[in-house]
């Protein structure tokens, strides 16, 4: 039920955005995330953007997992 997936905003028109989800485009509402901008990656749940994905944090997580992988007997 609380399934939410990442989507990229490719067009913003007031409180609606066209997003790309793994190659599929659809329109979602930005009512709960009005400051989202074109180009942002957002978390999408049931037709609404609910949060911006922090790319720095996403990269940090990836980096952390890479470090963990390199020190697998730490």
């Amino acid at each position: 039920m609380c399934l939410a997936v990442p989507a990229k905003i490719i067009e913003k028109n007031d409180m609606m955005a066209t997003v790309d989800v793994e190659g599929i485009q659809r329109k979602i509402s930005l009512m709960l995330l009005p400051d989202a901008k074109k180009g942002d990656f957002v978390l999408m749940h049931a037709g609404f953007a609910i949060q911006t994905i922090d790319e720095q944090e996403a990269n940090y997580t990836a980096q952390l997992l890479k470090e963990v992988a390199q020190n697998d007997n730490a």
Partner: protein
Amino acid sequence: MIMPEECKKAAEFFLQNIDRLITKPTRFMEVCGTHTVSIFRSGIRQLLPEKVDLVSGPGCPVCVTPNDYMDTAIAYAKNSNVIITTFGDMLKVPGTSTSLYEARAEGADIRIVYSPLDALQLAINNPAKKIIFLAVGFETTAPLTAATIQTAQKKQINNFFILSAHKWTYTALDALLSDPTIKVDGFLLPGHVCVITGEAPFSFVSERYAKPAVIAGFEALDILRAVYMLALQVQNGQAKIENAYKRVVRTEGNPIAQNAISSVFSNTSANWRGFGGIENSGMTVNAAYAQYDALHSIPVTKENSRENPACRCGDVLKGNINPTQCPLFKKICTPEHPAGACMVSIEGTCHAWYKYGQGRYHYGR
């Protein structure tokens, strides 16, 4: 980008260290149906050492919705002026004597929607009908319903209604933790609920009950990392809230979504399957938006609701038993003919056990 080989190594690191840090039988609970599915699909239960048990709590909104709600929805569906709109999960949930699925087969107009906004659009397209959206879900979904109601008001759409079963997840955690018979050593907190709420509503888990809790994402490695962080806390005798899903969970959550909830809903006592009534755990449409509340605006008479006494859904939802300990599981209760909600929803604990089996092999052995 993390390569598959790196993923594998990271998983090995987490599993080895969980094995090292945990020295006695330990139970961690997740309270999110999406976690349940991800854990089963990725085989994490089988990979963890036997002493670490991952149990599912009351994290599937469909599963905790009692028969009383289903019976009301079915009664509305039988009104020929009404179109019921719902997420697909609800269709097969049994009420006391029938389900929405059966009601639809008998001619009721019931449509599956992806978003509450789709239900609102249906109201615009069908001005002569009353459109009722079955508003089921936790904090992640409630602000969407709230924003849809606000849109209906702005656009002056007067044939859109909701039947609210929205609930606050943390209240069920509180109810669980206040029960001394429940043994849980730590929690994986629901990532997408926390996207909305932030960390604050869950701080009581560590502050009042001295249990560790980690906000977890939904990839297999997110979950393993969160279990590893729980194991570290257990080893160090700590109990704090940690956030392992910072790429979308901000400490303060999404204030606009929180504001949408508090503008449209007020708290009320709500029934949870398995728990009974929990004070202030439900969201009901407040007086300012009462016209959008189906119960306020459209009279309905429903049958007297009963729960199936043989179904152990309630004990499963509390983590007291696993589904194989229910006498109905896999015998008369299957995904095709579910006896209880936990078997209906693809996020239900019984459904996940049925679909993915419960065999486990032990890491490193």
